[in-house]
């Protein structure tokens, strides 16, 4: 009955620069059903991009390195695969959309050639066939096929992101990693691009991990949500659970810092302080220096995730529900 498509367990990523070690991802676990959309939400520097790149094994190495964990795609551990096997998986089964469309395209290659490149890597196509397919993809993302021969600098940011989407979806991947696909775009373009991604992945039945720091975007798009802080998942559950009943003080802080139409107070409450230094993470809960509910217990040891209700876990000792070793084992194995 296991319908799990992607399962990430205890993923750890570090960056080494000189003597310093940046602990970017510290034991992240989640799982994804086929066709599901999971959102990774967190501030800049929380480690979201590192998680996505680790799944595809395209961390810049050096300095980035996966130092622990398992990434299973349909039961196969990607971290144990050879580079040659990964070449088959990248682009074909997992594709990625990057944060900044202004820099994600090679400035010296026509957009058409860049789409064709991926197509021909994974399909046995002549250039003419691949070109035809690429032109279809361009049309699908709302770009006239005649612009196949143009260079990225001839496109606006929104158009470039459409090209990147066309490129990512050209080989019809099973899993799409969308790393803040709309952050760099104008608000009006954001909605268009999101809707485009949504409709295309519905059409192709693609699963998606959407990285965002925008809870509004997440609310529109996702089935489940993982709140990432300092390389850990602080709260994880279905969208309904996390939005209706946010348990972690950090998640609550995120919601409080959102402007809301129907709230009485017109003052926003941003979370005080900043992310901890990833080269020197505090003991205990990484959020405790900023947490309004922090107690002495929060500052020591490792805080284990707690199951607050079925399908909803929270890494906080104040989350309410009883914590058991049994639970955290199940949580770690990705079944929630």
């Amino acid at each position, binding site marked *: 009955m296991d319908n799990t498509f992607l399962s990430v367990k205890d993923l750890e990523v570090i960056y080494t620069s000189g003597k310093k070690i940046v602990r970017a991802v510290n034991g992240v676990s989640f799982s994804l059903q086929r066709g599901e959309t999971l959102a990774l939400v967190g501030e800049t520097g929380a480690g979201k991009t590192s998680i996505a*790149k680790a799944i*595809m094994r*395209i961390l*810049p190495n*050096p300095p980035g390195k996966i130092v622990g964990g398992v990434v299973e795609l349909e039961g196969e551990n990607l971290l144990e695969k050879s580079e040659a096997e*990964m*070449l*088959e*998986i*990248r*682009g*074909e089964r997992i*594709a*990625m959309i*990057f*944060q*900044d469309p202004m*820099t*994600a*395209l*090679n*400035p*010296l*290659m026509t957009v058409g050639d*860049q789409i064709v*490149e*991926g197509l021909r*890597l*994974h399909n046995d196509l002549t250039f003419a066939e691949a070109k035809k397919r690429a032109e279809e993809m361009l049309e699908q993302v709302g770009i006239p096929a005649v612009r196949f021969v*143009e*260079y990225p*600098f*001839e496109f606006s940011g929104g158009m470039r992101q459409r090209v*990147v989407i066309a*490129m990512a979806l050209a080989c019809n991947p099973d899993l799409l990693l969308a790393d803040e696909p709309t952050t760099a775009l104008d608000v009006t373009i954001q909605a268009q691009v999101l809707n485009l991604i949504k409709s295309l992945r519905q059409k192709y039945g693609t699963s998606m991990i959407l990285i965002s720091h925008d809870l509004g975007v997440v609310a529109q798009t996702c089935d489940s949500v993982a709140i990432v802080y300092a390389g850990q998942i602080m709260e994880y559950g279905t969208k309904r659970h996390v939005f209706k009943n946010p348990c972690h003080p950090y998640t609550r802080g995120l919601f409080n810092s959102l402007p809301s139409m129907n709230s009485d107070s017109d003052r926003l409450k941003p979370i005080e302080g900043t992310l901890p230094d990833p080269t020197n993470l505090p003991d205990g809960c990484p959020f405790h220096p900023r947490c309004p509910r922090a107690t002495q217990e929060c500052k020591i040891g490792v805080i284990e995730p707690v199951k607050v209700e079925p399908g909803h876990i929270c890494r906080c000792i104040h989350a309410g529900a009883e914590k058991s070793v049994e639970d955290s084992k199940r949580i770690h194995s990705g079944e929630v």
Partner: protein
Amino acid sequence: MAEYILKRCLALIIIVFATAFIIFTILYFTPGDPARALLGASASDAEVAAMNEALGVNRPYLVQLGDFFYDTFIRFDFGESWVYGRPVYEELAARLPRTVLIGLSAMVLNLFFGLLLGIFAGTHGSKWQDSLTMAIAMVFISCPDFWVALMMIVLFSLKLGWLPPYGIGGPEYYIMPIICASLGGIAVNARQTRSSILEVYREDYITTARSKGQRESVVVRRHMLPNALMPIITTIGTGFSRIVAGSAVIETVFSIPGVGTYMLSAINGRDYPAVRASVLFFAVFTCIVMLVVDLMYAFVDPRIKAQYSRVRRAKVQ
């Protein structure tokens, strides 16, 4: 594109005129008496005065300047050497091929080995191969050309007897001068290429290419190198002016009768027509190479190309 080429050619002409003006003015205001220098200390004042009269250096500045521009740019006549009495043009024509040969060959070596070493070091980022290549490059950048030239003569001519130490003759006479003229530039190019590659290495589009499942070797060849080498093109010109500047030294050390040595001896002998002509030659030579480089850049970079191509622009709208 035509508009771009035209613009650049116009700039070239202006630069040449400016150079002519500056060199003429500097020589005019140089203290001392050319006739005295030519005739020597034993000449009588009357002889010196007569000589100055004959050379026409007593006339007003503007008259002389006008004459110089008229002769040079309209009649294409560089005048006669004050020292030898022969037309400067003949002397230059005989010497010019040697200087051009050394300059252009050095530039080609510069580029070829500079890129090769830079790519090697850059793609081995911060491994020992990288450090070693860059250390050697640093040594060559810091060594003065003439010292390297002398050391090479000692080694390859005196100790090993492989190459003639100086003078001109067959192709073997040019080997050491060309290598010496290019060493510093190779090192500079290698360092620039390396840092450019390391910069491009972090670019998002490289990650994009990897995320498509492209092999690393193809990512390097198709995505990294073209982008990394683009800025290198613009440095070819500066590298070349470095070679030109060094040519007088190289030609002197290897006793090659080129334009560089001609210019030096002309300066020493106060042979103004010869000085002006050789300086102008170097200016034109450098400008032409820079022009070619700029055109190359515009041709390979789609961004610049499109800027000057109306057809494309219209289509984009």
